[in-house]
């Protein structure tokens, strides 16, 4: 990947990738792996970008897809390997933002299902229902209901 491409096409949108990757990882090491993989995939797939959507929307979609694939692979590996690690729900994120509320919100988001995490991240990033539906690959009606349900679930987790 040329540093020019990274600087001009990826770095301005790094915030998007960071926000998504943090929601799908528990450790800094995993986060860095996911981030690098997303960047690599963006670079590899750049020729497939058809300008039917904004570059940022495309980055959202690709980042989510990479994270979901990585997570699936990780789960498969965990299933295949005997592990004496703690179960997922006991794992605590080793990283911390200086904003405690944000830390709690991220912890809560990580307790959601993979798809719900994607939906709420896009919602919080102020994407329209249509854009969220396009990125996730579902219909707009479904998104509205789903967001309401996810927000309720997040509130419940946060209040606990």
């Amino acid at each position, binding site marked *: 990947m040329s540093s020019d491409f990274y600087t001009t096409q990826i770095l301005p949108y790094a*915030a998007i990738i960071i926000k998504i990757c943090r929601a799908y990882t528990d450790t800094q090491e995993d986060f860095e792996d996911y981030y690098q993989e997303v960047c690599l995939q963006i670079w590899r797939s750049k020729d497939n970008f058809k300008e039917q959507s904004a570059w940022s929307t495309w980055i959202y979609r690709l980042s989510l897809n990479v994270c979901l694939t990585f997570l699936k692979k990780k789960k498969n590996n965990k299933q295949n390997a005997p592990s004496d690690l703690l179960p997922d729900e006991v794992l605590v994120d080793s990283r911390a933002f200086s904003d405690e509320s944000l830390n709690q919100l991220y912890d809560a988001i990580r307790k959601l299902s993979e798809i719900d995490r994607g939906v709420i991240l896009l919602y919080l990033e102020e994407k329209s229902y249509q854009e969220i539906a396009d990125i996730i690959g579902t219909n707009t009606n479904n998104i509205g209901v789903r967001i309401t349900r996810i927000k309720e679930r997040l509130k419940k987790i946060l209040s606990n």
Partner: protein
Amino acid sequence: MEKSIERIWKEGFIKNDALVAPKLNNLYNQKSIDIVEKFKRMYKLNRIGIVAFAIIIIPLSYITGMIYMGIPMALLFIAVTFVAQKFSNQLDTIDKNKSSYEYLSSFDKWVKDMIAVNSKLSTFMYPYIFMAMVLGFWFIEIEGKILGNMLINGIITEFPTTYLVNGFPIFLLIPFFLVIGILAFFGGRIGKWDINIVYGGILNKLKILLSDMEELRK
């Protein structure tokens, strides 16, 4: 008042520390090692499979009365394992301390050498397997009689004027040598196809990774 999740999100990311992009490093290094390690595991499994087959085929062929097929097949598989083991030893000598690109290039060269030798061997291997199979079937005993002899006798009785070469009807010899010729001619290609079935996925990944890295070096 409790903050809404939208507000937590917005305010949280105003602070700079939340959005520090990690440096892109070491990615190719890890990927290179992963790909070679995965290949090594598959190659080892493949060798174990061949040895297991070589061991099983002798008693199996004895039980089925095809020992003349079993022994040459077992010998062939032992020879193939020996060659594969030699290649595996070479693979272990690739220096992991090289740069990712050099490491992968060395691995790529090893793969190409392995495929080239395998293709050459396949030119002999597939006709050999065919001959072993013919031999196996030929010497099957049915009611105390050998199947091959029964076949020759049948042909001679049916076609008394048939031309014989060293006691074998030309009817049998022509297709026999034709099949051997075809297998020898296409053996290399069959060998490559065989490798592609087993290792195709991983070799494609290697190709993509190398081309990424080559572009990076430009």
